[in-house]
């Protein structure tokens, strides 16, 4: 669902429908009763490929210990303006 122009689509929930057309209509009825959205995408659950939750430690290991990728790692410039 895109809640308004300029915002990316965000997952809001799941539903059942016999086909894609009805899924979009059902999603409108179920998730936009109070103007929550200006655009809806629906995706069949079996079309989604996910990372393995059991392997999340190893899978997301790479950024660990690489805090030099964050601006906050660099402290010597403290007090210097516009940096």
């Amino acid at each position, binding site marked *: 669902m895109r809640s308004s122009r300029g915002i990316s689509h965000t997952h809001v929930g799941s539903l059942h429908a*016999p*086909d894609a057309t009805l899924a979009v209509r059902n999603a409108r009825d179920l998730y936009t009763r109070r103007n929550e959205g200006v655009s809806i995408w629906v995706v069949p659950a079996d079309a989604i490929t996910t990372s393995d939750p059991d392997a999340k430690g190893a899978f997301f290991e790479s950024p660990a210990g690489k805090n030099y990728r964050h601006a906050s790692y660099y402290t010597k410039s403290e007090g210097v303006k516009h940096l």
Partner: protein
Amino acid sequence: MTIPPVPYAIDPDNAATVSAEEQQFNDLIAADSRIEPRDWMPDGYRKTLIRQISQHAHSEIIGMQPEGNWITRAPSLKRKAILLAKVQDEAGHGLYLYSAAQTLGISRDLMTEQLIAGKARYSSIFNYPSPTWADMGAIGWLVDGAAICNQVPLCRASYGPYGRAMVRICKEESFHQRQGFEILLELMNGTPAQREMAQDSVNRWYWPALQMFGPPDDDSPNSAQSMAWNIKRFSNDDLRQRFVGMLVPQAEVLGVTLPDPDLRWNEEKGAYDMGEIDWTEFHEVLAGRGPANARRLQRRRDAHDEGQWVREAAAAYAAKQAVKAVA
């Protein structure tokens, strides 16, 4: 209330028997984090959630009936539109919750089957009839009020999909309570007959609404475990007490009398004392012997049967389109 020993706590003598995945689950709960659908979880946790979420979903679906009944008879076009929106919200809330329950491995079809076969429970409050227009007010004010009181802490339930469904539900629910309060307020500002109708309705719904929080803490066997798992955050009696504390000043604004002669402020405990709840009635209604149990289930069964051709037609159309797309 004495809270029994925390059941999931790790027994140091027994620490070796806790598997790595169970340890991870325990750590997440201890850190007040969230459990997500594909995480490992104890069978008891899964079963408790399936039971609680599906009962909750069924309550929303059956809960459409006492009010759906009044859509055509509401006194103005505005009230009809409001009631229609409220009943539509309840259908939506049922669907959010069915989706949340499905992430635990139970199918939507099975839940529907359990409901229409009379094997699943739903909130006993919906087994009371709604014979007057004032009931639309009392249901909104008292029944939805109690539901909100129960549901706000559930937004922080440890199971992610349940908490997220509850956030959405709570956002929408507050309109329900306010519109009910407004119906009662208008009746209380009306003729003597209208005031009488409002008071009569409050008399009928007050006690069943207090029963919605469930049995007293010392008679609520699953509560301690649910609290240990961070599904439940407050005990039944605590929530009931909080609810009554909110109701008293609201009743004063309305000018209605809450039908409990023993209700009075207790300075010492800083809360209201209240009369004894009739738990025999609660258990009777729960066991299916309430005033409207049979009617509610029959209506749900009929609606399901009458919708059969729609489901079949939609599926047939989808299948036909799929064949066309391939060809």
